[in-house]
């Protein structure tokens, strides 16, 4: 059965993730977000009391779902709507998720994984498991249906249609039909009392089969053409087969002309267990379509509800940290407009309410950020990256407002500070990654470049950056770059001026970290022409010089 909570028209079948998703996760520190999403905030009388432990499945689910971009406004709205429903019916969402966790745990307990791994080696064991799985499905589906019925005023299309589908596919009659079948063959999984170690008299009743069937002679007089007239499980008083009464009854049966007695040592016994097996297997084969229909359902619903529960958790963390949040607005690729956007991961890590940035950039395909070290440039770039990833999977973002286009081809190319040593091997690796990105460019692409090509000299790096970025820009790729390559920034800036002078609207804009007259950093980005120094000296002075003086003083 279809779940369709992540997409209107399909389930989660390992869709294609962002290219080199691992790097995106690393560059934007998304793993912290995944972990946080898997931990619920505990309240006590509206006071935050603590945070639950990490739920590894939820963590993995967030990682998987966030790694895949939605493609259209409708797809994003579909998820946003469901998420709003879940925020309004938080208890429903959590109970549903935990019910599914229980069902899957019980299924695993029945030996689901082992069976998948080893295949069918033990037909009797497999058949018994099938009966138990049938019972589990019936119980689980009934419970899920009840949860949906109790959550009266669901509004989102996704949850409402799922509820309707459940009503339609799993009405009470269907449930009753399969329950009856499961009861009729219950003898097969019940304790038959022939366990020899059992203390005599411990077992008072046993469940025994009654099977009535027709057969005819086939080739070689083998019995064939089986037709079932009746299959029942009957509860009978337990009797030791070796007891005196059993023996007397066996004797009486033998006198009857058309009875085949089944004493414990009769060679016919072997065939009756084969008969029971085939009958039960045949009966279960009628349940197979039912089992198959829901085979993937519980996993899918677990995963898909997991995503929404994770999203609900994230919203609670935003609230806990005092961060504004909003559902982003989907625009064309030409718009990038936001107010008070904060870097969520940093806020989680440092437990602070960071400085928010506000920006309104229209009709620009290249955004170059230069300026003071430690001025919040990288944080700024990351905040956009995180918000973009969140938006593209339907999550809310930590901003007063956020409007942007959808870029299914989303790339990050970050030079990690600590290893930006100047050697050709590093540059080679950087270029190699860039080459990979270029090979995977799509129709709507965006690249976040952080200090790219800083692993070579400023001059060389500038030339490389200029060529690549120019080509990408011309190819219609949106680029946000934080750079120290001042010759590069300067060259692009001069070209931009010329374009403006020619009366055209340049496709490039420049931002800088704001630095007040007194040298204080506000950690805000403002639109500003590139500066030819990164004010690294300030930093050098404030750290190294001061430190030396400190130590001298000591």
């Amino acid at each position, binding site marked *: 059965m279809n779940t369709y909570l992540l997409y209107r028209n399909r389930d989660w079948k390992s869709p294609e993730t962002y290219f080199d998703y691992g790097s995106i996760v690393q560059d934007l520190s998304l793993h912290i977000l995944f972990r946080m999403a898997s931990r619920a905030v505990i309240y006590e009388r509206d006071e935050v009391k603590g945070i639950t432990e990490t739920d590894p499945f939820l963590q993995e689910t967030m990682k998987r779902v966030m790694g895949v971009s939605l493609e259209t406004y409708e797809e994003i709205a579909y998820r946003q709507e469901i998420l709003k429903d879940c925020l309004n019916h938080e208890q429903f969402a959590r109970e549903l998720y935990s019910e599914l966790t229980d069902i899957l745990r019980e299924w695993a307990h029945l030996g689901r994984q082992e069976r998948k791994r080893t295949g069918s080696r033990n037909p009797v064991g497999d058949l018994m498991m099938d009966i138990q799985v049938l019972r589990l499905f019936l119980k689980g589906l009934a419970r899920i249906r009840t949860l949906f019925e109790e959550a009266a005023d669901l509004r989102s299309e996704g949850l409402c249609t799922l509820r309707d589908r459940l009503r339609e596919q799993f009405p009470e009659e269907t449930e009753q039909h399969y329950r009856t079948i499961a009861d009729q063959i219950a003898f097969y999984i019940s304790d038959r009392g022939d366990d020899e170690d059992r203390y005599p008299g411990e077992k008072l009743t046993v469940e025994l089969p009654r099977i009535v069937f027709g057969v005819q002679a086939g080739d*070689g*007089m083998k019995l064939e053409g089986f037709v079932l007239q009746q299959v029942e499980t009957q509860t009978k008083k337990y009797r030791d087969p070796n007891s005196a009464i059993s023996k007397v009854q066996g004797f009486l049966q033998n006198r009857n002309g058309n009875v085949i007695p*089944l004493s414990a040592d009769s060679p*016919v016994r072997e065939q009756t267990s084969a008969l029971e097996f085939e009958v039960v297997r045949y*009966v279960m084969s009628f349940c197979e379509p039912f089992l198959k229909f829901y085979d993937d359902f519980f996993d899918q619903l677990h995963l898909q509800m997991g995503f929404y529960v994770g999203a609900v958790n994230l919203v609670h963390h935003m609230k806990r940290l005092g961060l504004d949040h909003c559902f982003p607005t989907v625009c064309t690729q030409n718009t990038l407009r936001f107010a008070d956007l904060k870097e969520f991961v940093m806020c989680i890590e440092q437990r602070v309410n960071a400085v928010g940035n506000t920006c309104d950039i229209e009709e620009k395909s290249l955004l170059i950020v230069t300026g003071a070290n430690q001025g919040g440039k990288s944080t700024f770039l990351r905040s956009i990256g995180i918000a973009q990833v969140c938006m593209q999977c339907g999550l809310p973002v930590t901003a007063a407002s956020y409007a942007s286009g959808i870029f299914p081809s989303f790339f990050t190319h970050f030079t990690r500070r600590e290893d930006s040593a100047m050697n050709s091997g590093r540059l080679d690796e950087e270029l190699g990654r860039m080459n990979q990105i270029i090979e995977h460019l799509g129709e709507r692409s965006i690249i976040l470049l952080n200090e790219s090509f800083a692993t070579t000299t400023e001059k060389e790096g500038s030339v490389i950056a200029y060529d690549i970025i120019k080509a990408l820009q011309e190819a219609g790729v949106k680029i946000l770059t934080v750079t120290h390559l001042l010759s590069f920034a300067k060259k692009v800036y001069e070209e931009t001026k010329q374009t403006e002078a020619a009366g055209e609207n340049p496709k490039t804009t420049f931002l800088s970290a704001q630095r007040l007259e007194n040298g204080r950093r506000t950690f805000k980005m403002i639109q500003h022409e590139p500066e030819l120094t990164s004010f690294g000296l300030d930093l050098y002075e404030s750290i190294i010089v001061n430190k030396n003086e400190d130590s001298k003083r000591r």
Partner: protein
Amino acid sequence: MEFTSILDLRRRPNQDTSRPSFFVDLNLHQVVEKIQSLWGETVVPLYHYFPVDEECEEFRRAVYRDVKQEAVHQVLFHFYEAMKRRENARVKKEKVRSGLQKSSWQLRETAEYCYALQNLLTGLEGQELSSEGLQALREYLRGYLSGEAFGQLCGEVTELLAEQTQCRVTLIYDNQQILVSEEPTLPMYEDYLRNTGEHGKEFKSPFCRTDELTPLETEVWKLYARKHMDLFQRMEKFREKYSDYAEERLLLLAEELPFYLSFYKFEQWMKGKGFAFALPTCDSCKPMRAEGLYDLALAIVNLSGGKPVVDNSFYLDDGEQFFVLTGPNQGGKTTFARSLGQLVYFAKMGLSVPAKGANVPYFTGILTHFSVEESIETGRGKLKEELIRLLPMMEDGSRNSFVVINELFTTAANYDACIMGKNVLEHFIGLQCKGIYVTHLRELTECHQAVVSLAAMLDENRQQNFKVVRSKAETKGCAINQVNKYQLTYEQLKERLAR
């Protein structure tokens, strides 16, 4: 003509099923194994029977031409399948221990036999048959089936079988006993299961793990026999009466049919993959020729890799007897030589040949000599070893054979090799043989007026195209070829790196 066999005029003319010596040289064992694996049963030995003379070859060719009519093929194939079921029943009958079971299997075996023959005759009646073999078969069946003995057999078996299927019981398994009743069974539970519109799997008999009766089945029939002893006794009488009912030549027919049927299946399969087949004409008065001839073994190997196979056309005019083929290594010389040998083999067997069209005159036999890899040498020097293998071919002395010789005397000095090669050629030409001689010795192309020089060609880019044409022997080297083959020239490398 009285019907005896569809493989030959005389019954079992050639009982030798050992592999002919040329099979491996021509890679025919690969082809035949492929045919066998497609067919799914042992047929390889059938491909080792040779017709004894020209008349027999024509006899088979005519049968195969009939088999290729789809309607005829269907009839024969169904007959073959029915006879296979008969054989299975016979094997089961021999195997089981219980007398009652043996009798029951005897009914099945006999029934399959009767139906198989009735359907075969009915199927053949409407067909236009042109072969002597199948016409004789049909005539024979008309007589045999209208005979009194056959009619009685059919009648008895049909009646007993119908009675056997009427042996029905209802079993009630309950409370540690099984009640056997002859009340009819009501399929109530089946109906209940189908309530939801679902379909279950077929009910698999819990007793089918053995062909013998299980103790439960034995008990059931024991109880049943109390009232129905008479039927079981009549079944046993039938078994005794018809212990030897089958006509030998019809059993043989079922064994021989797979020869045509398996090749037909193979031919259809290859055609489906885009390969041509043709029934050759075999006019000894006309020149030998073929159009679009290819190496069938290579075609099968290349199928898995999706590589195309080059085909060639050739002819041998009056007075021309031997091709001497020269050309660059890896140019397709051996492949061409093999395809010629295969052409003659399949024509001799009366089957289709791997070509678009061909005329193959009658040859008494096929003689081949392929140089053996250094590694499988027997310790003798290579030249000595070659000569020892050549000796029986030369001594064979039979006239009018088809000879395929591949790279003789490669280890001998050029001068010696030329003289020896010339001798060999003259020997076979003298015996009115035809054939092909692949060699690197250009001198041999001009050693006799019955010799035709062939060359494996290079195309304008000096790439091999594996085409073989009549031409003076080429003298240029072929190193560039090897480089080309591995795409290692400067331009090629440039282009590859730009992608």
